[in-house]
């Protein structure tokens, strides 16, 4: 197994606060891994560092055998590392199809052939084909979440970073997204890194969990181990133990 993503000593400070501290981990190709931690643990900052949305202070990030540390967000996407946002960020003023087509216009995706047809395939894949011509303003939140997926998938990623893909969704919609993630992983061999602050969604989806608190990795292991890990439990005390998904 070769490492698709290697992170070494990644550190980011915001005026005195160390948001991400000496984070190191590797992700194998085809792996689906979760990053767990209470709110403020530094998970989203870590994503922003990996995807070039924030410059890091120290450390190394290698993706697919190359350093992507100094690259800009669009360059990283075109290497095959795409992301979704915690709060859905559709392009207002464009239709659902037009939103997805933007991802299909990325140089990496254009090597795959006709961008209009690519968009149709992806809309089908995420279950938005029937709403393709609607303006994004009328979509319910669950569909906006699918649109986030579609736009990221349109860039033909090798690794997909999902920032709280279940946030703001009802139970039924969560089931649909879990199903979609699993299908992308099983059928297309997509490597996936998921951020969540609740373990419940992870239990059935990921094999390995990286737990973070105060910007640091505090534990790594299978979901069943992580649930019982004293430092993980400690990190959730006083916040909301139910959030961990074990109460």
């Amino acid at each position, binding site marked *: 197994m070769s490492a698709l993503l290697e992170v070494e000593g990644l550190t980011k400070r915001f005026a005195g606060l160390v948001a991400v501290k000496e984070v190191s981990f590797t992700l194998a190709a085809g792996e689906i891994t979760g990053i767990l931690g209470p709110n403020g643990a530094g998970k989203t900052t870590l994503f922003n560092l990996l*995807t070039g949305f924030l410059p890091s202070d120290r450390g190394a990030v290698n993706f697919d055998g190359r350093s992507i540390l100094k690259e800009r967000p*669009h360059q990283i*996407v075109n290497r095959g590392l795409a992301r979704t946002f915690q709060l859905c*960020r559709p*392009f207002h003023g464009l239709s659902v199809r*037009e939103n997805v087509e*933007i991802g299909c216009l*990325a*140089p990496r995706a254009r090597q795959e052939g006709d961008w209009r047809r690519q968009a149709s395939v992806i809309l089908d894949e995420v279950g938005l084909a029937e709403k393709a011509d609607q303006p994004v303003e009328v979509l319910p939140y669950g569909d906006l979440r699918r649109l986030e997926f579609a736009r990221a998938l349109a860039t033909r990623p090798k690794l997909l970073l999902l920032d709280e893909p279940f946030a703001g969704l009802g139970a039924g919609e969560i089931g649909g997204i879990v199903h979609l993630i699993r299908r992308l992983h099983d059928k297309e061999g997509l490597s996936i890194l998921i951020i969540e602050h609740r373990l419940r969604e992870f239990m059935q989806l990921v094999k390995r969990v990286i737990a973070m608190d105060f910007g640091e990795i505090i534990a790594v292991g299978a979901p069943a181990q992580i649930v019982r890990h004293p430092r993980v439990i400690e990190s959730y005390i006083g916040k909301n133990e139910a959030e961990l998904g074990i109460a």
Partner: protein
Amino acid sequence: MRKRDWLGAGALVALLAALPLFLENRYFTGVFTVCAIDGIWAASWDFFSGLSGRENFGHALFIGGGAYAAAFMNGKFGFNPWWSIPVGIVVPAALSLVIGFPTLRLRGPYFALAMLAAAAIMQQFAVIFWQYTGGTEGIYGMSRLIDSSLGNYYFVLATLVATVAVLKAIAASRWGRILRAIKGDEGACEAAGINTTFYKIASLALSAGFAGLGGVLFAHYEQAVTPDDLDVFLSISVIIMVYVGGIGSIWGAACGGILLNLLLELLRGLGEYRLWVFYIILMLVLFFMRGGLVAPFWQRLQGSRA
């Protein structure tokens, strides 16, 4: 573009082409010439700022850049006036790169403010280096592109039509799609693998080139340039034209340019109250018809017939 849109556009151009023939008056031919030039300026502003949402408060830099380039080429160095056109396109496009590179990478109001400042600085240069620019008097004694005022009007009108057609075609292509996505959410557009900085800078250069072309036409029509061609009042006027016409449609912006200049002429009889009435009308339009006047009106007309 639907068939009805083609018909509407054809009818409008035919009307603009026919009006000076009926009015048979050099004064009106001149008014319509300036109307069409305003249309070019407004369309070129709308292409970049209307589509990308990055508002340019110094379009006069590009307009005046083209006008002064023409004045130097023809008025100072005595080149054939047709040389003004390529030079008057390239100079503002180059200026746009100088401002676009440092400011369009940044989020926030930096670009708008940098454009405002750049136009003001250039206007001051035009005054300070009076030995070369003629100072506040400007440069005059330029030749016309076409001597007959009717012939010149038709050339300007054809340039307006070509400008709108080219910019509209680009706006309808994937290029325009990307600009609209940048307006929606630039960060998300980068997350979709698009080099947004490149598209913004290239689009600004195109916008600047067409604005400069309009500036060349204006300079040769007036046979003179003055620092007013770089004035903030001109920059703001262009923005108002676009908002009145309907932002983001390009052809609507062009119509806004024509309409506002016509309105200003029609109000000439009011003498000193002219600008007062003009701005009251503008405020009413901007308050009560926030999508603009021309483009939404056409859409409503379509809706009621369909």
